[in-house]
């Protein structure tokens, strides 16, 4: 058991707990109990096969589930992030109601695309990392600091990424020092890039990005950004089989979050349902989702 590692026979807290200096949970655990960290377990060489292979059971020939599309949009009050609810394993739907957007701390959120199991573990460690720093230092980590910590974690997963188990998160939040919402994207090597206005990741991101380009307006309100996020996810689901649209039969809605100076807030299912209803009403007989005003303009011409 990790708690017992290096412990004193008297039962006192192990010496590693008393070492002053580091405010990083990852650094502390790497010294004290490395087996609980992702990336510290040796894996056999070779890639994960595209179909079937050594994995057994589960849909999709036992391939690990993949999480798909996430969109993030800067709005006037901060930033909006939304993700669809589908996880796929090969050509199968592994889960209909997976959640892929999480609070990282009170003023930031992280959305995941890629191998779901590894990504969820990364998010969990990232959340503890930020909270640990906050408690030990008595201060919030800077936005840059958070983005860099996540970058380091992604780089730690590079070996697995090259074997076909990539994790590509998108990080967004309200920068309390700069006083605005910010979005940071990553590649599998841990490279981090600041995005202006909006960004999307995952298999449906190409289609979502097209929608975002057309619908984004600088300085838009949070409510308008939520609508744009739902529209973009709809367009992604329309053309990408791995992205799930809103499930009207089961009442499964995209996870939509808003991060402002007041903190992280998840938009309630009832509010998202209302936005989805509006999108559906607009797209009936108008599958591309052209805004109604321009439809009227076109018919008048």
């Amino acid at each position, binding site marked *: 058991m990790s708690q017992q590692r290096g412990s004193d026979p008297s039962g*006192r807290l192990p010496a590693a707990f008393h070492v002053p200096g580091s405010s990083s949970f990852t650094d502390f655990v790497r010294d004290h109990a490395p087996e609980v960290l992702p990336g510290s377990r040796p894996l056999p060489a070779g890639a994960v096969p595209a179909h079937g292979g050594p994995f057994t059971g589960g849909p999709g020939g036992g391939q690990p589930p993949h999480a798909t599309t996430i969109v993030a949009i800067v709005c006037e009050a901060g930033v909006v992030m939304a993700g669809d609810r589908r996880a796929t394993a090969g050509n199968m739907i592994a889960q209909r109601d997976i959640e892929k957007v999480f609070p990282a701390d009170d003023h930031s959120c992280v959305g995941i695309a890629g191998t779901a199991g590894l990504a969820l573990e990364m998010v969990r460690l990232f959340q503890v990392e930020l909270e640990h720093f906050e408690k030990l230092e*008595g201060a919030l980590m800077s936005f840059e600091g958070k983005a860099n910590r996540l970058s380091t974690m992604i780089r730690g997963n590079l070996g697995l990424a090259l074997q076909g188990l990539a994790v590509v998160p998108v990080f967004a939040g309200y920068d309390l020092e700069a006083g605005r919402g910010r979005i940071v994207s990553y590649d599998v090597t841990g490279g981090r890039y600041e995005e202006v206005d909006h960004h999307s990741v995952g298999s449906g991101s190409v289609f979502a990005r097209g929608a975002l380009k057309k619908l984004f307006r600088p300085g838009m309100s949070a409510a308008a950004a939520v609508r744009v996020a739902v529209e973009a996810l709809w367009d992604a689901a329309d053309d990408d089989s791995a992205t799930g649209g809103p499930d009207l039969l089961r009442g499964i809605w995209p996870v939509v979050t808003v991060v402002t100076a007041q903190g992280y807030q998840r938009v309630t299912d009832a509010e998202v349902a209302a936005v989805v209803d509006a999108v559906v009403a607009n797209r009936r007989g108008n599958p591309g989702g052209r805004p109604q005003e321009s439809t009227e303009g076109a018919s008048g011409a």
Partner: protein
Amino acid sequence: MSMPFYVSPEQVMKDKADYARKGIARGRAVVVVAFAGGIVFASENSSRALHKISEIYDRVAFAAVGKYNEFENLRVAGVRYADLRGYSYDRSDVTARGLANAYAQTLGTIFTTESKPYEVELVVAEVGPDPAADQIYRLTYDGSVADEHGFVAMGGSAEQITAKLAERWSAGLSLEEALALAVEALGSDAAAEAAGRGPRTIDPEQLEVAVLDRTRTRRLFRRLPPPVLVSLLAPTADATADSTTAEAAAPDAG
């Protein structure tokens, strides 16, 4: 050749205990008071950065008196213990009892094996879903643990302050009442008793106050900065309205 003097083990322990007690009694007091909505921690501490009260985990907080470097070391160890346990198991598996045991073993070992004992006294407290499930553990320099009910005072003038709390505390206080009692108790120290003019008044700027608030979700620990304290301590008829604004104004940073 000189022979070392024989000192009986009783004398060694007594000397260490006296040394630790003197160190602890020199500092300002910390009081911990349970109320209907959680547990409030208060201390006279003019520093905004060097805290005596701190968050450990979702439902668990820590308060200490004595030597800063020693209790800060224990606080850091506690946060590491809690975060590692919560990460390897689940957030609900981190309890004040487990942490109090770990601290007790640590303090006990240091007291018996090292030449200088820690000059600290700690409280580890956890709020449950209702007041009956609240736990307050008080740990002393030698590793002994006491399961306290309702209130604790430790540090300088602890006796006088405890007497005040024992006289006035009752179950089911509101936050305003518990806070007013805590501040009055902190002001009822030996100096005030000697002066014989009743409790000193303590400026809110000089107070470090935090609560474990049962009504919050996930991380229940919140610090109450001086502006919030002023409104909470103000003797107004409409106390409920005050507490609502206070909660809204409390910042998120720990």
